[in-house]
């Protein structure tokens, strides 16, 4: 048989196409979105634009990576935005007191991990649904930092500010620092999830908790680890946010980060029911959430409707996933 294009097409059954689309749906949607953006603004597809996109998506994107891990594990964390506010607020205090960025970063990571592990412990040992636990801590964490700041902002001291803001504003060989950090963390989380036992267990717990337990997996430990890692990533995110904004207003910092993270995970092709999906997908998903904002501005759609669009996207992707699961 000759290898003509028509033969190749014949072998490429709809089933295969559908299967590939299912696995790499996030690539397809990314390309689609890029096409739309380029149609609206022909100059969109440029290095400057794409690196800005990465930079803008990075702070929330790092959280989306943790959220992806949690959702694959069958959990969810609504408190990430409040963790960011609490960690960043106190992070500014630590930074101003010590003047040491490394110590501050360490504090942010450790404190974020602690807050995340509280979520995890309550879910695992309190046997409360993750959505309830993190709804409660979302309110609690935010309230603590608003009280500490008495509603006002936490400002980075003026003598520290000039060099501290360069962490987020700087670049290496023309690649923004934030984008680099985002990519490095994505690769690490991606390897952990695809190449280690821990990653395998996360998928197993999210797919069938009962079977995972009966295969000897310490299910509670896996859940707590996922929450802790997400908290730690939110801590890193807080540190970067501090550098980018240099002023943290407790009532506003990190608001709706959970929405953007969950939206990114959903468009990234990760099953909202757990057990399925790739970290690379949530990376692309986080970029797409950012792109959508850009597209809405370019298309002159009022920015107030951002939330509506993201809401629709979450519902729509979940409906699509359901259809796929039923097929």
């Amino acid at each position: 048989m000759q290898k003509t294009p028509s033969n190749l097409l014949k072998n490429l059954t709809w089933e295969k196409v559908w299967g590939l689309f299912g696995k790499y749906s996030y690539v397809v949607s990314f390309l689609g979105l890029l096409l739309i953006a380029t149609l609206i603004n022909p100059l969109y597809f440029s290095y400057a634009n794409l690196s800005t996109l990465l930079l803008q998506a990075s702070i929330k994107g790092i959280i989306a990576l943790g959220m992806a891990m949690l959702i694959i594990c069958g959990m969810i964390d609504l408190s990430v935005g409040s963790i960011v506010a609490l960690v960043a607020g106190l992070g500014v205090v630590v930074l101003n007191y010590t003047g040491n960025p490394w110590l501050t970063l360490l504090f942010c990571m450790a404190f974020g991990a602690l807050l995340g592990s509280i979520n995890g412990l309550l879910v695992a040992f309190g046997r409360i649904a993750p959505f309830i636990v993190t709804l409660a801590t979302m309110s609690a964490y935010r309230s603590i930092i608003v009280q500490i700041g008495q509603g006002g902002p936490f400002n980075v001291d003026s003598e520290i500010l000039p060099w501290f803001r360069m962490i987020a504003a700087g670049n290496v060989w023309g690649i923004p620092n934030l984008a680099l950090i985002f990519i490095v963390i994505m690769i690490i989380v991606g390897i952990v999830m695809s190449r280690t036992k821990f990653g395998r267990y996360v998928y197993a717990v999210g797919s069938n908790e009962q079977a995972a337990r009966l295969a000897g997996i310490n299910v509670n430990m896996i859940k707590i680890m996922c929450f802790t890692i997400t908290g730690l990533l939110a801590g890193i995110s807080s540190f970067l946010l501090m550098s980018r904004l240099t002023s943290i207003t407790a009532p506003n910092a990190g608001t709706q980060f959970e929405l953007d993270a969950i939206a990114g995970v959903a468009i990234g092709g990760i099953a909202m029911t757990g057990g399925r999906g790739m970290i690379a997908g949530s990376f692309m998903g986080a970029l797409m959430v950012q792109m959508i904002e850009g597209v809405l501005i370019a298309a002159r759609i009022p920015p107030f409707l951002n939330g509506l669009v993201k809401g629709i996207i979450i519902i729509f992707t979940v409906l699509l996933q359901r259809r796929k699961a039923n097929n």
Partner: protein
Amino acid sequence: MILEMKNISKYFGPVKALDEVNFTVSEAEIHGLLGENGAGKSTLMNILGGALAPSEGQIFIDGQLIEDMTIHKSNALGIKFIHQELNLVNDLMVYENLFLGQELTNRAGMLDRKTMVLRSKNVLERIKVDIDPEELVSTLEPSRKQLIEIARALLFDSKLIIMDEPTTALTNKEIEILFEIMRSLKSHGLSIIFISHKMPELFAICEKYTILRDGKFIDTGNFKDIDEQKATNLLVGRSIVDNQQAKLKVTTPVVMKVSGLTSKGFFEDINFELREGEVLAITGLHGDGRGELSECLFGARRVDAGTVTVHDKRLNLGNIRDVMRAGIGMVPRNRKERSIIKDMSILNNLSIAFFVAKHNKFFIDKKEEVERFNRNQKITDIRAGNIDDDITSMSGGNQQKVIVSRWLELDSNIYILDNPTQGIDVGAKFEIYKLIGELASRGKSVIIFSSEFMEIYKVANRCLVMYEGRVNAELFHEQLTELNVMYYATGSNKEGINAKNTKQLT
């Protein structure tokens, strides 16, 4: 009503669950439907009830062809299905359950509580059950819940009632009442399809029988023309292969000792020993605490008292991983819920327990995984297309072979198999029996939890029969008969009535 099901076939993917089955029930007839688990009884009845569509074949009722049977249509025709599992809403009252989905309303569209309670009371009196219609279902004993299911079928005009093992949860006295009700229904012209594994009951209450085996129609006739031996032979089909290995009395050293094991509310004071190379079956009826016992032996459920020792070392029953490392592997029951990780590939499903107990490296090596799969494929004869496909793409039997391999890979000394042949086809069943034999001959010990007599007879050296959470009898292979097992599983020895009396109940 005259029911005729003609040439019914049903395929589930590549599996042929029913193969041109014919089934006829006449008016005012109690018809026993017999078959081993997996013979296709439930599938056939689900087709009649409209829950499943047949792949081929026709259903005639009173000579009329019924096309596209649905649950609704079947209900409207007066066919009522009393399921084996209880389908009651615990948080509603008895009468609310009886009328669930078919509530009576008054002219204003409000629920007519008074009439519903009254009618419930009447139907409960009719079946001589002393239950207040306004009692909450959650407060009732399981056996009484079963009676409510039966009452529900009688509440509305039915012409044909399907009873799927209705007696498993009932006491002897309640069975007696049930049989009386069945006879009175019959005298009113109703037909009943009675599904049961208990021969004495079938012979006591049914006139006609139909036997299915491996999805095929085998025989139909009158019970008065056959005896239990003949029925069993028809049921099992193949003459039972003499398994020499199972006949041996095992006298090797004890590897596992269970003493005074108790889990409150499920089982109490379980004692037994397991020897090297021995296959021990544990059987009983629904609600005997067997399932919970299997979980406790594997450290998957809290134990209130008692110990398990393996090679004289006490097992930490609080941690599954410790149990696995002590050399115990377990294939759980309900493959779909407890074994299969549905979003994972065939390969990953096989590897998962190995990672927990034996894998010490940081990264996963795909090459090792593939080698592991190939090794096991030879042993358990897994038939798989692409090993990176989801496990759900395989047939049930092959899925189970992957799960068995998951545990073989740990090279445990003791294997706990909880209902390992549930929902798999006959071919795969026999391969698993063969595997059990091979394990035993290699000096591994096996505890198999099963409710299928033929299965136990084929593989086990010894059998413990449980009744109400206790070991009621220990039977060696030469004492293994279906009657014997049933006698102890129903606790007949404890009630002071022997099995023959159960038969004479009528």
